[in-house]
Each structure stands twice: as C-alpha cells, then as structure tokens.
C-alpha cells in the first residue's frame, strides 16, 4: 500500500461524506467509556436527522444524539451512564414523550446481533429471554417494520434445536436477527492511515459493530505509523479493509473515558445530568456547546472552561486518572 490508499479524513469531512439523514448508524463504546463523542457532536452540528440508532449499552453518545432530536428509533440492550445517570436522561424524556421508538434486547442478544452482522449470517441463536416481555413485546410494530427494508420483519424468532436426539426434549433457542448498519462510528486509541485499529483495554462490541457495517468511521487519539502496528499485530482489533475513514481526534471520547489516555469527567457528567433534565437547558447546551463550537477542540475548550484536561489524564500504570474526585 502507499499513501494513495490513505483513509485519513477530517472529522467534518468524514461525517458529511458517510452519514446522512435516515441512516441506520451504530455507535461503539459502553456507558461512560469510549463513546465516539466528537463524531456524535459533529453529527449534531451537521443537522443529520431521523437516524435509526443501534448501540450496545450506551451511554453519553446515545443521550446527546437523542436529546438533539437526531434519532427516531433505537435498538439497544442498555441505555444508561452507570452512577452518573442510571437511565439516560434525554432518552428517558424522549420515551415518555413518544419521540423515539425503542426495541429492547438483552446484552448478549445485542452482542450477537452485531456478531451476526459481522459474520455475514442472517441470525445467531441466543439462550436468553424465553418467557419475558423482551421476547413478547414489540417496540416496533408491523407498520414500522414494513416501512423500512433495513429492519427485519420480526424482532426475535423461537426455534427448537434440530440436533436434539429423538425422544429428548429439544433445547429452545431464540434467534436474533443480524444488524448491518449503514455506518458504524467508534473511538479507539490508535489507528494507522489504512484503518488498522488498536483498541486498548476492553473492546466491548466495537470490533463486531465495525465489521457489520457498510461504512466505518474510526476516530482515534493518535494516527500512528504503519510500522508501529506491524510490530504488534496481536493488539490490532480491526483490519484496515473494514474501515473507510480514519480521523485523528484527541480527546475524541470526552466526556467519556479512553483507557490509557484519559478518564471520564465526573464534573461534566454531573453537570450534564442536571442540564439534560430539562428540555430547555439541554437545548441551551446543544446550541451553545455544539452548534456554538466549530470543532472538537473548541468544544473541549468551552466545556472545560479553561480548567484544562490535565486532571483527567490517565495514570500510566492504572490507565485512568488518579486525580479526579469521584465522590459526589
């Protein structure tokens, strides 16, 4: 490969090229960790609307997108921010007001849906949810499912194990349909110009979300040299041929954590909880902090209000900050 095969984009360029209103998009990360926040803010800035959003267990990215009115439907296992917001705040309001439709799956089912998409199979078998409302209640009715060919015609299907021995009681499995988003956006620690991506620490469902997608944007703390990754292929979670755009965005997961780089910002997350609690104050936040800034550097500057990000920087041994105050 040579530099003509480079996939490096600006963030604004990557979002405008690959994400459009009505798309089915998927966000990586988990609750307060490695949400692709810079990309989320840029989607809001570019006024993308009507998104069909897949997340595993998200988190700040989901909540800001929903709060900004960019989302019409969500499929997820969990929508919370740990102790900072046991249920995502704008998300809760949007559910109450009927502004979004939500289809609920379990953690394992959602992980398997991304895995199915990444494997190029139409479904995978799960062992959870028999007898529950996850199996019996539908967030999307028939009309919604018929309205968009990218949504499978059923939420889940139950079947008996065809390999059961004659006379034995067959295991009952719950088939989950594959997810193949139009675009997956993740934030990682390192990537090279061809898209080979290193995720340090837990990978969550990011690798599967990436492989399942038609187009992929990886934002990362650092774009590194191709040679540096060839010294440690074992740490590369995603092959380059799965990736369409690589964007260097330092602090691109802020205010969520990025292992070995920085921690989540408990001060911001507490402030966010109060701000997001009312539609008016949240709207001020979106206008002032997202539309009112041109890019992620400006957003960071405004958010940290001159305090600087140094308190968040990861301790080299622990991989998170040992200086933040986490007790509220």
């Amino acid at each position, binding site marked *: 490969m040579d530099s003509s095969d480079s996939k490096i984009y600006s963030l604004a360029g990557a979002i405008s090229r690959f994400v459009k209103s009505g798309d089915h998009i998927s966000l990586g*990360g*988990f*609750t*307060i*960790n490695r949400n692709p926040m810079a990309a989320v803010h840029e989607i809001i800035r570019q006024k993308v609307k009507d998104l069909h959003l897949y997340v*595993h*267990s998200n*988190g700040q990215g989901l909540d800001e997108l929903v709060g900004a009115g960019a989302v019409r439907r969500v499929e*997820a*296992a*969990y*929508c*919370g*921010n*740990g*102790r*900072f917001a*046991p*249920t*995502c705040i704008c*998300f*809760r309001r949007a*559910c*109450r007001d009927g502004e979004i439709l*939500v289809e*609920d799956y*379990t*953690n*394992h*089912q959602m*992980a*398997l849906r*991304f*895995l199915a998409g990444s494997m190029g199979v139409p479904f995978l078998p799960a*062992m*959870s*949810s*028999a*007898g*529950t*409302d*996850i199996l019996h*209640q539908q967030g999307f009715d028939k009309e919604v499912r018929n309205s968009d060919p990218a949504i499978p015609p059923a939420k889940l299907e139950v079947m008996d194990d065809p390999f059961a021995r004659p006379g034995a009681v067959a*295991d*009952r499995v719950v088939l989950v349909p594959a997810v193949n988003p139009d675009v997956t956006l993740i934030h990682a620690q390192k990537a090279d110009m061809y898209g080979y991506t290193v995720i340090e*620490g*837990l*990978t*969550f*469902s990011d690798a*599967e979300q990436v492989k399942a997608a038609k187009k992929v944007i990886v934002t990362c703390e650092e774009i590194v040299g191709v040679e540096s990754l060839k010294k440690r292929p074992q740490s590369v979670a995603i092959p380059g041929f799965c990736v369409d755009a690589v964007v260097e965005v330092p602090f691109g997961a802020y205010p969520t*954590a990025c*292992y070995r780089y920085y*921690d989540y910002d408990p001060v911001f997350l507490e402030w966010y909880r109060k701000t997001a609690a009312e539609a008016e104050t949240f709207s001020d936040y979106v206008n002032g902090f997202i539309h009112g800034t041109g890019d992620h550097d400006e957003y960071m500057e405004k958010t940290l209000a001159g305090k600087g990000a140094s308190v968040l920087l990861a301790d080299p041994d*622990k*991989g*998170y900050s*040992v200086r933040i105050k*986490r*007790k509220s």
Partner: protein
Amino acid sequence: MRYTSKEMMVICAARKIRNTDIVFCGTGISVLAAVTAKCWHAPGCTILFETGAVDPSLEDLPLAVGDPRVMHRASAFCSLAETLAFLQNPKTARHVVGILGAAQIDCYGNLNSTRINNGESGEVRLPGSGGACDMASSAGRKIVFMKLERRRFVEKLDYLTSPGWLQGGNTRERHGLPGPGPCHVITDRGIMEFEEGSRRMVLSRYYPGESVRDLAARVEFPIDVESSKEAFAPTEEELAVLREKADPEKLILD
C-alpha cells in the same frame, strides 16, 4: 457493633459466594459483595464484569461496569459476546453466581428493569435489560438485590425483563430456560427465598431489629413469613473487610 442496612445487604450476599464461583457482578453494592467475599472466605472466586474484565484487582471501585477501573490488573479481557457466553457455556455456567438489581420484582422473582407505567404521568423509562435477562435466563445461581418497598415488590410487573420462576411451579422449565430461577432476594430488611414446588417468594431471614409484620407490609403480594428466622448480624471481621478492603473510600457505602 453498629452497621448500616447497606452493609448488612452486602455481607449477606458475600456469604453466598463460594471459592470456586465465577461472580457476575455489576457496580454498587454487588461489586462490594464480590470483593468482600474474595478478600475474606472465597479468595479463589473469579470476579467477572459483563463488560469482559476477568478478575481485576479493583483497587479503585468502578462507578459503571464500563468504568476503566474494571480493566486495571485484570487477568483477561473478553469481548461482550464472549463474556455473556460464559453464562451459557455448560462448563462455566454452573459456577456462575449472578447478582442482579431491578426496579420491580414479583412473587416469583421475575424482574423489571425496562419501564414503569406511572398512570397519568406516563411511562418512566428505565435502562433496559443489559446483562440482567441473560444472567436470569441462564444456569448458575442468581441473587437479587432490592430495596424492600411496596412499589418494588409488586403484584404485577409493568414489564417482565428478566425471568425468575416465571409463573411458578415448573413454568420456567416448560419455557425451555436452562437452570433454576433466583435463589435469594437480599433486601435492606431481610432475605427472601422461593418455596420448593410452588416457587413463590417466602421470607427466609429478617435482619436483627426488624419486625416480620413490618416486612410483610412492604410487599404488595401475600408472602409467607412463618418459617423466617433472624439473620446473623455481620461479624466484626466481615465489617472490617468490607470497610477497609472493599470500599475504603466510602464511594458506595456512604
């Protein structure tokens, strides 16, 4: 020896953890129970977060299962798909003890963490299943943590997120769910179990100082309290481990 009801809950759960267990825990008091057990009578147990961190040192307590503090000095990292599969894998599942919370529970131990119907003020959305339904569906033992309140111990769930004993009796088996329903519901005032056969909730232990009648009044459905006994108060050693090793910063205990 003074102790809070939160400390009592943690210690009651910790006592249920065995040396060969794989403890699937969340944050809050469930991680405290796991750490207390590991520092005390079950050093061989493996703490496993649904996010895929296997046996981290937990020098600093995580505030979410996605907190980077679950990664520090872990013994292995797994993807979400790999991690949740340990709940089903026939070799690992029987060692799993899952610790779950919820907003509502019914008399068969079924749980709701998806949404509450608040009548006129409409639906109150909750975070959703996460790994709770997976844990509750699988083999292994399940311990539920709940505050004992009438609005939580309800006649009818607004949404059945995680299967307990379903409609009691053998309905769980008939639905094809592997393994048993929950074994214990540990509350801030006492511990419930599920009667053999009917699989209805019964009061098993009340904490020292609690009245059985008061406990029963905090449950919307009828609950048998006849065979309940007083729980053992935490020992000095248990409290010392919990306070000094598991949560020295008082991040969760306060």
